[in-house]
């Protein structure tokens, strides 16, 4: 670990929630960032200011507050465009989150384009949000779900890719970073191969957008979905990026205000992008908060954030791998983003999480919405520690020590139940 890769601990002061103690006197060690991150004062303030000074519904109002609110909402869209390297602002659709974005594509693009026998190419490390919508689509259309196999160490096995990716493949949906294994997937390579057979590519960027620089044009992907709450933004806001030609050809999904051009007594015509996919009052202040989060992340720099997490995950990997009875999931540190999942021979993940919590360390235990991956790995649950820009080496060391203590405590000791 190069100390120079680390971000200054002083930036923790930007995050009011981190200053607290839990269970009495335990400083909070928040390592549950893959589930949802915390947010800096600047993001909270942007939302408060919007509500307290500049709020009204957007788009349709001819008055000062509505104009300020509309400008702020559209400015957020332009920040997202720049953040993702998209060509046009109308390629940026505000949604309520990654799950909503993927479902939108599965319903709107999927129902319009898939026929019985067409193939959807997935893989077993995907989050339920990037599996279930495709299973539902397959059920509606008769399309077939196939999976790219995984390597022993939890990467996509692209060796025999052309067995899976064929002219029958209509879409490849893949996560840029696995929320359980930490694997960083070769999205660009996969997109090139998919386009070669005429398939479109959807990227689940829920775990990558907060941590790694994203450029949709460089990656050359067709759709990309992310969630604000995992990247220092508010809950209830997300983004779906889609290439303009694809979005333009897609039918609207939700019907309602804004997404229409003209409504008659029994039919309607659709608005242009991006309104076509933003029916109803959008999450206005959520979008403004996301814009502020992007400003915050960009000011630090995504590359520096990644390097920082890289340093932490290397140290965590190194330390945890020495705990007795542990199994670390996923590839070695250089190939992964800033999270690490593991199982101990004993106790169970939930017990680990509960005992870590008592030390003030927040981790996640369970299947992390990746049941098929857990089945594949032959386990029902794992414990996950996931890092973000505000985590420190000291916190990683506390995690390692606490995991070691838990394992020690549950070492078999020849206990006997009291017989009745």
């Amino acid at each position, binding site marked *: 670990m190069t100390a120079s890769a680390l971000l200054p601990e002083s930036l923790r002061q930007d995050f009011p929630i981190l200053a607290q103690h839990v269970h009495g006197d335990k400083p909070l060690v928040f390592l549950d960032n893959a589930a949802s991150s915390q947010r800096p004062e600047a993001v909270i303030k942007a939302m408060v200011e919007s509500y307290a000074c500049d709020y009204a519904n957007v788009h349709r109002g001819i008055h000062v507050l509505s104009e300020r609110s509309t400008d702020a909402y559209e400015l957020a869209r332009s920040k997202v465009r720049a953040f993702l390297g998209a060509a046009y602002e109308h390629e940026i659709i505000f949604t309520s989150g990654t799950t909503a974005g993927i479902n939108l594509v599965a319903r709107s693009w999927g129902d319009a384009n898939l026929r019985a026998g067409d193939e959807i190419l997935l893989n077993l490390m995907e989050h339920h949000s990037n599996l279930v919508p495709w299973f539902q689509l397959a059920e509606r259309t008769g399309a077939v779900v196939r999976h790219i196999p995984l390597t022993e160490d939890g990467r996509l096995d692209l060796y025999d890719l052309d067995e899976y990716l064929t002219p029958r493949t209509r879409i490849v949906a893949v996560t840029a970073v696995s929320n359980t294994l930490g694997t960083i997937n070769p999205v660009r390579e996969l997109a090139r191969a998919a386009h070669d057979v005429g398939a479109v590519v959807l990227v689940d960027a829920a775990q990558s957008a907060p941590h790694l620089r994203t450029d949709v044009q460089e990656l050359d992907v067709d759709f990309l979905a992310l969630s604000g709450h995992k990247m220092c933004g508010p809950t209830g806001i997300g983004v779906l990026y889609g290439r303009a030609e694809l979005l333009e050809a897609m039918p609207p999904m939700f019907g309602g205000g804004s997404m229409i051009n003209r409504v008659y007594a029994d039919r309607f015509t659709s608005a242009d992008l991006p309104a076509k996919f933003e029916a109803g009052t959008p999450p206005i202040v959520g979008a403004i908060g996301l814009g502020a989060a992007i400003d915050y992340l960009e000011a630090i720099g995504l590359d520096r954030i990644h390097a920082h997490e890289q340093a932490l995950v290397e140290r965590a990997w190194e330390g945890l791998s020495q705990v007795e009875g542990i199994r670390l999931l996923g590839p070695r540190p250089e190939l992964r983003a800033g999270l690490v999942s593991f199982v101990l021979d004993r106790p*169970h993940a*939930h017990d680990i999480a*509960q005992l870590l919590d008592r030390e003030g360390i927040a981790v996640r235990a369970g299947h992390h919405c990746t*049941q098929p991956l857990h089945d594949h790995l032959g386990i029902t649950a794992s414990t996950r520690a996931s890092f973000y820009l505000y985590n420190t080496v000291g916190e990683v060391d506390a995690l390692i020590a606490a995991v070691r203590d838990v394992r020690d405590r549950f070492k078999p*000791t020849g*206990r006997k139940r009291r017989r*009745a």
Partner: protein
Amino acid sequence: MPSEEEIYQDHILDHYEDPFHRGKLPTATHAHEDKNPLCGDVVRIELQLDRDGRVSDAYFSGDGCVISQASASMLLEALVGKTVDEVKEFSAEDMLKLYGARLTPNRQKCCLLSWRVVQQALYSPVGA
């Protein structure tokens, strides 16, 4: 931390390490399996009900946290020998009391898993 708050009390760890009737029951007349969907805890319980409506034997198997596994052990230890009616009357609250340690709602689900499975097993004759 007062003892009732301690969910990893000694007698619970005893049940975890040295469980009552963990295994299969080839003579089972009733059986059920279920899981805690959020956690992945799984418990299967096999019961042998005799003619006069008593639980004459019971075994559990499964995988999961200390709470779900220890509570299954405690529950079966308490139920063997009871009548079916007594088992039906044994409430969720009774189960939490039997477990002893105070649990958050999240962890109560782990503790109540085997209780739910037993209640269901009473209505699930083997081979039906």
